[in-house]
C-alpha cells in the first residue's frame, strides 16, 4: 500500500495537540503515521495538562510561521510572538497577575537567540526592569558565562520549554542548555536529525541525559521512557568506539562494537525522537512520493588566480595556499578535531575559490564596497577583498560557473495556474560575493 497524504499534520501541530492536553486530539490517524515511536507518545502523555507558561524556541526565520501553525492547530491557545528580547520581557510582564488557567493557555514563540539574550542577562538588555535573571558581572554578549552565572527567579508557573530543531544543540555545555538547566520545568527537544556526523555528536546530544550532567538540572530532562542505565551503557560504548575506532588493529573489534552501538542508539532515537521533522520519510521509509530529484556534482579546479590571491601578502598571514596547508598536515585527515578543521578551513578557504573572510559580518548593510566595511580590526585586515572583487570573480571557477548558470535561467510554469514566470533559484553560500556575481549577470545583459 502506498501512503499518500496531501496534507501532513506537521510536527508542531501534532506536538501541541498532544502536549497541551486541553483539547481532545482529533487526528487519531497520527497513530498510523508514527507507529515507530509509541514511547514518545507515552512521554508526552506524562506532561499533559501541566499548568503554566509554554515557551517554544524556534529558528529565527520560522517564528512567525510556527506561531501561525500553532494558532491554526489550537485556536484556544494565546500565541505571542517575541521577536526581540525586550518583547520576551513584555510578554512575560503581561502575564503577571493573570490566572493560572490564562497562563496555561499562553504560548510564547521566540527565537533561541532572543531567549538566550534575555535570560542570560546580556549587557544590552540589562536595562529591562524586573528581569527574572540577574548576575553579578556585566557579561559580554559573546560569553557563555552569562548563562552559567546568572540566576533565574521565575515567579510565573512554567509548564514546559520546547526546543525546536534541537539538533542545533550540540553539546551539554552549550549556552542554551546552561540556561534550560535552570528552568523549573520539563524541557522538550524536537528534532528529526539527531545524528549529525559522528559518534561525538551523539555523545554531545545524549550527553544532555547523561548521569554526570544530571546534577546541573533542577528538572531532570531525562524521561521515564529512557532509562538512565541504558543511556549510560550506550555512552560508554560510544566513547570506546570513538576512542579506538580509528586504529587499525582494533578495527574489527570496533566494527562489532559500532554495530552494537548503533543498534542501541537507534533504539534510543526511536524511543525519544517524538516526531520526524519532514513529512517525507520516517526511518528511511518514504511517506509521500516526491518528484524526481537530480543531483549534480560540479567539480571546479583550483586556478592559478586562486593561488596568486592566496599567496598575496595583502591578504595577511592567516590565508595560505591550500596546497601548502595540505602538505603541512601532520595528522591523518580522519582524525582532525573540530578546532583543527576550523583552522584548516580558515587557512584554505581561498583554495575553495572564495576567501572565507569575505563573509557578511564584515560588511555593513550587505554593501560590497570597501568603504562600507565595519570599522573593526578584523575588517581592516580583510576589507581589501572588497576592492578586489573583480579579481576574485575572474579567478574563481566556481563563480564563473555560477555566472553562466544564472545567465541561463529561463522560465517556469506554475502547476496550479499555468502562469509562466521567471525561474526561481535558491543558492546556499556563505559569501555575499555570490550576489555580486549575480548582479554582474544582470549588468552584462542590460
Amino acid at each position, binding site marked *: 500500500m*502506498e501512503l499518500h497524504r496531501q496534507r501532513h499534520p506537521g510536527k508542531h501541530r501534532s506536538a501541541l495537540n498532544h502536549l497541551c492536553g486541553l483539547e481532545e486530539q482529533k487526528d487519531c490517524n497520527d497513530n498510523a503515521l508514527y*507507529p515507530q515511536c509509541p514511547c514518545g507518545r507515552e512521554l508526552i502523555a506524562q506532561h499533559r495538562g501541566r499548568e503554566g507558561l509554554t515557551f517554544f524556541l524556534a529558528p529565527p526565520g*520560522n517564528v*512567525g*510561521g510556527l506561531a501561525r501553525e500553532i494558532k491554526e492547530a489550537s485556536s484556544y491557545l494565546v500565541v505571542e510572538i517575541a521577536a526581540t528580547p525586550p518583547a520576551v520581557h513584555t510578554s512575560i510582564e503581561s502575564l503577571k497577575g493573570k490566572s493560572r488557567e490564562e497562563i496555561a493557555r499562553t504560548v510564547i514563540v521566540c*527565537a533561541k537567540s532572543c531567549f538566550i539574550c534575555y535570560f542570560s542577562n546580556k549587557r544590552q538588555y540589562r536595562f529591562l526592569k524586573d528581569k527574572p535573571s540577574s548576575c553579578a558581572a556585566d557579561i559580554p554578549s559573546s560569553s557563555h558565562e552569562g548563562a552559567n552565572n546568572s540566576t533565574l527567579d521565575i515567579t510565573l508557573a512554567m509548564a514546559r520549554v520546547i526546543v525546536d530543531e534541537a539538533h542545533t544543540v550540540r553539546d551539554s555545555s552549550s549556552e542554551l542548555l546552561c540556561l534550560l538547566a535552570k528552568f523549573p520545568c520539563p524541557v522538550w527537544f524536537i528534532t528529526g536529525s539527531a*545524528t549529525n*556526523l559522528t*559518534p561525538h555528536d551523539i555523545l554531545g546530544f545524549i550527553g544532555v541525559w547523561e548521569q554526570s550532567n544530571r546534577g546541573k538540572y533542577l528538572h531532570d530532562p531525562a524521561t521515564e521512557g529512557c*532509562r538512565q542505565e541504558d543511556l549510560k*551503557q550506550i555512552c*560508554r560504548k560510544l566513547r*570506546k568506539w570513538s576512542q579506538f575506532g580509528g586504529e587499525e588493529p582494533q578495527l574489527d573489534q570496533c566494527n562489532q562494537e559500532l*554495530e*552494537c552501538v*548503533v543498534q*542501541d*542508539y*537507534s533504539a534510543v*532515537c526511536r524511543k525519544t525522537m517524538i516526531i520526524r521533522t519532514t513529512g*517525507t*520519510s520516517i526511518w*528511511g521509509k*518514504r511517506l509521500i*512520493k516526491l518528484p*524526481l*530529484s*537530480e543531483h*549534480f556534482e*560540479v*567539480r*571546479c579546479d*583550483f586556478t592559478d588566480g586562486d593561488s596568486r590571491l592566496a599567496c598575496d601578502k595583502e591578504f595577511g598571514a592567516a590565508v595560505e595556499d591550500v*596546497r601548502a596547508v595540505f602538505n603541512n598536515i601532520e595528522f591523518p*585527515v580522519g582524525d582532525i578535531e573540530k578546532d583543527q*578543521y576550523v583552522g*584548516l578551513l580558515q587557512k584554505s578557504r581561498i*583554495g*575553495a*575559490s*572564495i576567501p572565507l573572510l569575505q563573509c*557578511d*559580518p564584515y560588511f555593513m548593510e*550587505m554593501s560590497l564596497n570597501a568603504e562600507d566595511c565595519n570599522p573593526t580590526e578584523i575588517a581592516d585586515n580583510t576589507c581589501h577583498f572588497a576592492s578586489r572583487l573583480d579579481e576574485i570573480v575572474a579567478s574563481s571557477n*566556481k563563480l564563473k560557473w555560477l555566472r553562466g548558470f*544564472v545567465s541561463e*535561467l529561463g*522560465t517556469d510554469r506554475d502547476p496550479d495556474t499555468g*502562469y509562466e514566470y521567471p*525561474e*526561481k*533559484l*535558491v*543558492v*546556499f553560500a*556563505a559569501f555575499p560575493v*555570490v550576489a555580486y556575481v*549575480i548582479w554582474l549577470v*544582470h549588468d552584462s*545583459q542590460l
Partner: protein
Amino acid sequence: MVPIPPVPEGYAAPQCAPHSPNREQVKLVYSTNATMRTREQIMSLFSHNLFEARIIVGTYGTIAESYNLTRAAKAVLFQPDWLTFGEMQAKARIWRCGQRRNVKIYRLLTADSVDIIMAERQAQGAQFNQAVLGIPSDFAETDEDVTEFSEPRVYHEMFPADDTDEI
C-alpha cells in the same frame, strides 16, 4: 495557504530566452542583514509572488531549516557544509511535500581544497546516519522508496545488560 496573486495587467510572459534577474530580485538572507521579520517577508515573496524575490542567497544557518521554498526547482550548494544533515536539510527546502516539479540540485566542489575534506567527512557521517537511523546517504528516490510502513521492531532486546566495561 496564501493564494497566488493574479498576473498583473499588461504583464508580458517572459520568453524562454535567458532572463537575468535584476538586483531587486536577488534577496540576501544573512544573519547580519535579515531580521526575523525581513526573512519572513522575503520567504513570503519568494513563495507567493511569481515575479519578485527570484533568487535567494543565504547560508546553511539562515535558510537551510524551517522554510518551504518549493517555488524553486533548482538549488545550488555553493560550498559543502560540515554536517551531513546540513546539506540534507538544505536540499529538503525545495525537494519536499508540495513540490510537483522535478528538482535539480547542484553541488559545487573545488578540487584540492578543504571542500574535498568536508565532502569526505560528510560521506563518513552519511554512512553513520545510514547505520543508525536508516536514512539514505542521498535523496535519490525510486518508486520502491515509497513503501508501506513496516511493523515496529521489537526493541525490548536492544539494551543488553552484559556490557559494563568502564572507559
